Each structure stands twice: as C-alpha cells, then as structure tokens.
C-alpha cells in the first residue's frame, strides 16, 4: 500500500507540469525625492515586496557634457526587508554624444556609490539606438568592470523592440535584463489603441521572448497619462493626471470617453494647452495590468529566479489598483 502510494506520488511528480517559481516582488520608485508615504509603505508590506528599484539620477546632456540630473533626495531609508536596486536613467542623447563612455561609467559609479546605499545590483535604463549602441555598450562594459569587485551585478532595461530586433540592436553586456512590458503601442495623435498597453500591439513582440540571450526580469505598468495632441502631432504627455481635476477644468470640454478638447489656451498640470488641442487619457486599469501579465507569462518562461517589477510606487498609482489585484500580478501562472 505504502509502496503503491509512493509510486503514485512519484508518477504524479513526473507527469504534472511543474509550477514556475514565484518571482521576487518589486516596485520601481521613480521620484526625485524618496520619502515613501504610509500608504506606500503599507502597500510594500502587504504585497510582501522584497526589492525596490530606486531611480538614483538621470544622466543627460547639458551644455556640452553628460551630467547627472535630478539626483534622488533620500529622505528615508529603505523599508525593512526591502533590498534597494539603484537605477540610473541615461538619455539616448547623452550616449550618442559622449566621447568617453569609460570615463562616464566611472563618474556614474562614483555618483551611485555616493548615495550611501548598500546594493547588490545596479540597473541602467537607456533606450539606446544604433547610433548610441557602441557608446552605450562600452559604458555598460566599463560599469560592469567597476561593479564586479564589489559583488554588484549589472542589469539593464530592455524595451520590446530591442528583443524583437535583437540582432540589429544588440544585446547589452549585462548579467540580466528587465523587460519593460509597456509602451507597446504607437504614441501618435488619434492612435486607435492606447500606447501604454494594448494586447494587439503587445502580441507582436511575444514570439521570441524565450530566445533572448539574457535572463529577463519583467516590468509591468500601473501608471496612466494623458496624451497631449496638437493637430496631427503628439506634443506632450501629462503624467499621472488627476482625472477628476481634468473633468472639472473649465478650459477642457469632454469629447468622447477619456478625451477632452481644449476650448481656450490654458496652463493645466504644467502643460501649455492651446485652443483646439486634445487630451486623450490612457489609463492602466487593473484589468489591463492582468491582461499584460497573462500575455507575458504565457510567452516568457524563465529558467531561473526572476523578479516582477511594477511601475511605479506612488500613492496616486496605487489608488487605481486594489492591493488584491496587485498581489495577483506577482503570482506565478502555470
């Protein structure tokens, strides 16, 4: 009897589909001041988040040189039990124009270290192009060499087109990639589908995810924005708009679901709106976030431990996503 039970158990182990391991739970924090609010801390705790990808600073091209911009002000330490991964956003322009990526890597490394954080991973975010690829990859090589003696691993964000056209865009010389599974659609005036995420456009990038040569962590969007259109052009984005405030704004007139027409020149949310402009809301709802997670998990089958990162940790973002929904985004899908 016992031998039969053991046999059945072994057979079931052998025949059933093994569940993928649960990903580590993480958020991006993308503000210039790190001072998580009680609501944000509570969300981290209840969601059992163990890793925080903290935007450290940007590297941008200013007055003929690549310089750090918007260094994060650390007004609080990392929450207990949460490991911090500093993230450096490097503009494509800085990479295109720098003539010494090695020196830039040294400065960047020193700047990150000067934050005084303990970290085992450093992430670089850059939407590199073929014009900047050479400098960017040299920058990463140099940064990796600087980080290695400190047992710090280097990761890089990977955009979907960089996976799809990996042969052309190259694979960055880092230990891991963080696949940004958002900004999938065209950001053009009158776009038929939202640009942050829509399943139709996202599906076009899924075919070769498993073939990408780097182990990939995955990032999902929770944020919203309003696309600012002028005639046939997109002229800007109002990030994380206050939807109620938009609805109450006298210079805006509703023009269909999630769409407003500007009826007179106005300053709204720091944006200079002109009469005739259109604001088109793109909101990442819980349902869309789940659809994104399901699509991604159906196409990417990690062979080792992985991390799921939600963008981003912000009260306004969290208000649109119940914690139970966020929790489900971290669960492994067989």
């Amino acid at each position, binding site marked *: 009897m016992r031998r039969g039970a053991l046999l059945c158990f072994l057979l079931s182990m052998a025949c059933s589909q093994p569940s993928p391991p649960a990903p580590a739970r993480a958020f991006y924090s993308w503000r210039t001041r790190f001072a998580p609010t009680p609501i944000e801390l509570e969300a981290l705790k209840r969601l059992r988040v163990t890793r925080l990808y903290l935007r450290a600073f940007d590297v941008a091209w200013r007055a003929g040189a690549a310089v750090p911009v918007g260094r994060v002000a650390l007004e609080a330490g990392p929450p207990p039990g949460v490991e911090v991964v500093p993230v450096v956003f490097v503009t494509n322009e800085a990479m295109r124009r720098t003539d010494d990526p090695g020196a830039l890597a040294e400065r960047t490394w020193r700047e990150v270290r000067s934050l005084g954080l303990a970290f085992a991973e450093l992430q670089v975010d850059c939407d590199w192009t073929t014009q900047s690829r050479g400098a960017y990859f040299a920058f990463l090589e140099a940064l990796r060499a600087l980080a290695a003696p400190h047992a710090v691993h280097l990761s890089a964000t990977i955009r979907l087109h960089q996976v799809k*056209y990996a042969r052309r865009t190259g694979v960055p010389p880092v230990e891991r990639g963080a696949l940004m599974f958002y900004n999938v659609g065209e950001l053009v005036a009158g776009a038929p589908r939202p640009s942050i995420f829509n399943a139709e456009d996202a599906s076009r990038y899924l075919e070769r995810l498993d073939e990408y040569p780097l182990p990939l962590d995955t990032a999902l969007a929770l944020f919203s924005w309003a696309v600012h259109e002028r005639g046939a*052009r997109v002229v800007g984005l109002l990030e994380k708009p206050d939807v109620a405030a938009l609805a109450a704004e006298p210079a805006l007139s509703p023009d269909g679901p999630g769409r407003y027409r500007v009826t007179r020149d106005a*300053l709204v949310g720091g944006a200079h709106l002109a009469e005739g402009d259109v604001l088109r809301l793109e909101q990442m709802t819980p349902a869309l976030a789940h659809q994104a997670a399901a699509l991604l998990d159906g196409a990417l089958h990690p062979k080792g431990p992985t991390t799921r990162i939600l963008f981003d940790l912000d009260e306004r973002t969290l208000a649109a996503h119940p914690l139970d929904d966020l929790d489900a985004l971290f669960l492994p899908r067989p």
Partner: protein
Amino acid sequence: MPSSCLVRSLAAVTVLFAAPGWPCAGEDGEPVSYFDAAVLSRPGLQPFLYTPGASFHERAVPPGDENLDEWAQFFEGKVDRAAWAQLLYRDGLERLDALINRLSAKQPVAPPPADAAFFAFPDRPRLLAALMYVGFAKRVEPIALAARPADAWSEPVVVDRAAQAPRIDRLSAAGAKQAAAERDPFLRQRYAFQLLRLQFYRGDAPKVLALAETWRSELSRPGVIGARALCTVGGALRRSGDLARANLAFARAWDASDDVKEVALVSLKLASEKDLAATLALAQTPRERAVVWTLLGARGSELRALEQVRTLAPDSDLQGLLLARAVVKAVGKVEGAGAVDGARLVRWLRSEVAKQPRSFQLQLALAHTGAARADAKAFAAASAAAALAPADAATQRQLRVTSAYALLSAPGPLDEALLLRHVAPLLTAPVGSDFDAFVREALSRRWATQAPVLSAAFLGAPKGFDLRSLLALEAFLAGGGKTPVEQLAVQGWTAPPQRLARHIALARLAGADAVGAQAAFASDASPLGADPFWLHARDCLECDQADTARPTVTRAQALTRMAALQRAGSPEALVELGTALYNFTEWGNACVGEHELNQAFFQSAAALARRALQAKDREVRARAALLLAKTELQAFYQSPAYVSDRVDFQAGEGFRALAGLEDTRFAREVLAECGYYRTFRGKR
C-alpha cells in the same frame, strides 16, 4: 559571410526601426529655419529667442557684464576695467587688503605695477570705500558658495548651518553698520544686497523678506544688483510658499537686468491657470503684466502671450521676442509641447497687420511664416517689410532670404522677372547658410519636369549618376545658356569642371566601362583602402585594410588595370574586374564613397560574374559563382525584402552554381569559410 559587411548592411536599415511609437524628430534631424530671430529683437534678449535643437542652457549668451558696467560708471571710467574685474572676481582677500593698506598709507609708497590702475584714480576716499565693500562681499561669498559642488559630478555638499551661524551674525552686524554709515547710494545698495544674501544662505526666508522691506529704497535702485536682490527675494518667497509673489519678483528681476534673465526665467513656476492669475493679480502696471505674459510665452505659450502683450504693451520690446520665438518654432515645425501652430500664427499676424500695416516686425513675421506655409501672399508681405525695414546688414540679409523664400515657396508659376531680381543674387552671392542649398533645390524642383538639364544645372554641382543626363548637363554648361534663366543657371554653377568629369567617369565605371572612366582618374594618386582585386569567401575589410604586405593601389593604378581587364575580356579578367567593382562599394574593401553607386556596382559585378560562369576552367567558374553570390547577398540586404531579422537570406544563382562546382579547390575554401554557404548547403 561576413562580419563587417553585414554590420554595415544592418546599420543602413536600422534607421527604419526607431523605438516603437515614440516621435523620432529631434534625434537625427533637427528642425531648421531660415530665420535670423535676432532681427526682430534687441540683443539683450537674444538668449531667449528660440534656437531649434538647443536647450536653453546651450544658447549663446552675448558677452557683457552689467555689474562691471555699473562699477565703471561709479568710477567714471577712471579705473581700468580689466584691473577692476581681476580684483572684483578673481583676486583673494590678501591681495585686496594689501592694496587697501598701500592706498591708505600715510607715507606715499611706490605702487607695484599691478596697483597702478588704482593709484591713478583721483578720488581715493571713494576708491577706498569701494574696496572696503569688495572686502565685505568677498567675505560673504564663501557662505553663498558653500553648498555649491565643485562640478556636476561632485557629491552634494551638506552645509552645517549651525556652524555657519556665528559667522553670518558677525558679518550681518558689520554689514548693517557699514551700510548705515555709507553715504553713497551705489555702495549702500550693494551692502544691503549682501545682507539679504547672508540670510538667504542661512535659510532664513522671513529674515530675507524683512530685510528687503528695511532696505526697500536702496534695493529698488535700477540695475543688476536690484535685479539680483529681486531674485533673492523671489527665492525666499518661494521657500515661504508664496508662489505668486515669488513669480512676480522673478518677473520684475527678468525685466530689470539682462544679466539675471536666465535665472529669473527658470525660477518662475507657472503650472496652472490659478498660478498665472494669482501672479497677474499682483502685478501693478501693464508692463509688469506684459512681462509675466512674456515669460509664460518664453516657456511655451508664445501665441497666447503675444495676444496679451499686444494689448498691454503694444510698442514694447517684448513683442519682438515673442514674435521671433513663434516664427522660428512655426517655420521650423518644432515639435513637443511648445509647438506653435503656423496656421494660427498666420491668422493672428494677418489680423494684426491689418491693424498696423506700418509694423516691420509684423510684416516680416507674416512674410516668413507665410513662406514656410507656401502662402501666395507671403511675397507681398516681404515687400511691405522691405519698405519698412531698418538698414542694418542683418535685417537686409534676412529680407533677401525671406523674399526669395516666399517667391520659391509660392504655388503656381514663377515670375521670371522677380526670380532674376530676388533669387539670382543668392545664386551668385550666397548668404552662406543652409538657405543656399534650399534655393538651389527649390529652383531645381521648379524645372525638374519641363527642363531636366536646367534643373540639374541649378543644383550647382553634379548629382546622380545617370550617364545620359550627366553628358547632357556637360553640354548645356559648355553652351552658356540661351535664355536669361538658363544663363543664370550656368552662372550659378559652382563646381569645378574636373568634378563633373570625374562624376561622369564614375557613372561610366558603374556601368563596367573602365576604359571610358580611365582618363578622369589618370592622375589620381590617392590610395584605395586596400587592393580591390582581392576576392574573399569571407569579407573582412579591416583585415584587408590592415594588411601591409600587399602594395598600396592608387585609384589611377586600379583604373588602368580595370581598363586592361575590360579590354582582355577573358573570364578570368571579368571576375577580376567584377571583384574590383564589388570592392568599390561601401561594403567592399576599397570603397570609393559613393553610396548612390552601390547598386549599380553590384549589378555590373553580377553581370560580369554571369558572363564568367561560361568559362571552361571550373576554378574560374567557382570564383565567378562566389562573386555572383556576394552581389546577390548585398542586393538582398538593401532590398525591401530585408525588413526584419526573421527574414533570412535566400540564396540565389551564385550559391546554386557553386554547389555544382564543389570539386574545385576554390569551392572547398568557400565551404570551409562561409557560414552562409554551409547553411544553404544544409538546407539543400
């Protein structure tokens, strides 16, 4: 096949694949405009005129130093400006104290040469009072700079304010005493400003505001120090949470001095209509309101601001600034949140011109914006502007450009009399900017269909490699032109005759006519990158170019040999000639740098390879087969079929021919070296 050739092919097509969905403008092609914005504005405002592709911080700031100008007035021009600048900005306290001691010595001393400029000043008490103030300012400066890192990459400096407090208190007390005792209003204002700074850098915003009130009359003296004090007050108000008053202080500072305009503009915080309304409500004069609107315009709402400024300050210098920005943005098709709608700008300008037909600024702005929109009425506006324009060289140059731009952009047939009057001078005496190329291309387009030779001649230099057209152009230029327009085109041709001859030779060479091309290169001793007669199974341009064992081949030598090969006409010669043509492309080891000729070279090389495939010698046929395969692969990389990494090279005639020649030594070498061929063979 190939390492570097493949990389180059990929680089050529990758520009088609920008990040999905993001606007591409700005990365590779910056917006252009043929408009010198400075002609509508005064020099002091030049840094605030919009410059396409440059961030605010990258714009050139005209040289000038209002502070030094004011000191020069104080000294009535009797102290050398450079000597004073050295003392004021660069010398340390030690040097200053030594100078004061020497100047105050009871016994006359012989001044060292560096002091001569000061000893020559006749009013010594006035000079000593100024030097005492400079000493005080130099003691304040380290406190102001304490939090400033050495450079952008230095760690932020944490200032121990508590440790600084006693020093600030001492300096404040001493400064207040000096300020109260000082009779000269110029120096009193400066002391008062330093007192404000001390409290500002201590972080005591209420004290700054209180001091500003105490020293109100001193600080309100016009000039750069008053403007800097307004910026300090603006900063303190913002720290106190009073955004509207802070904004007004920055607006007043902007208007008070050119030296503080940049800091005032970037300090202004206007995020909503509420902020704007609150700031405007505090403004006390129409000029102040106009300045607030101007700054809103300079931050991205030029048209809205223009409409207000025209009412509030119709004859002010602010209109020129906003007009210039709006025109540059509209005609440059600048994208982003600051984009200006050209149609709306033209509508507004028309209505304003109707009200003020004598305004040069409005007429020129209308002419140029209209020209960019192919408006038939733009030339009339340019003529009206010309009648009203100032006579300075920059304005006259801009009028020539705008008039030609309007004429060439207008729809419909071109008036030849106007062309000869307004455009011809730009061909024979170019303005020296991108506009020259625009003029040539516009003229060329006008005659592209009805007179292709004239169209080609207007370009001023050979373009394209169509042999028949080039020969026709050569004959046309030699004839000198019959009509005035034809004569204009001939006069405007700028390229030297050898350039056209060489161009024609290259066109002949691309058609595998090395004999016809030879003469144009007969004296060209410039070396090619590598030996072009070298055929590899696997290209490696860098290896070929680094191989010093092979002798250098000049262009003249290569052409001589190619002509000989063409004359020989044997299959071996055809393969060698075809190899040289292949290597003359951008993907070959001896690139001649003519992107347009790549396909023609490939096609000619392929045709020669096909002829050589008829050879009896199987080794020669194997070489011809590989040459053919290489041209087919390159043609594939540059064809619309190659749109994604998912599409693999489809082997063609070359590899199929090689497969039938695998008993040859050459085919075995190819098999060993060429992965593409092995893939093709595996698929078969």
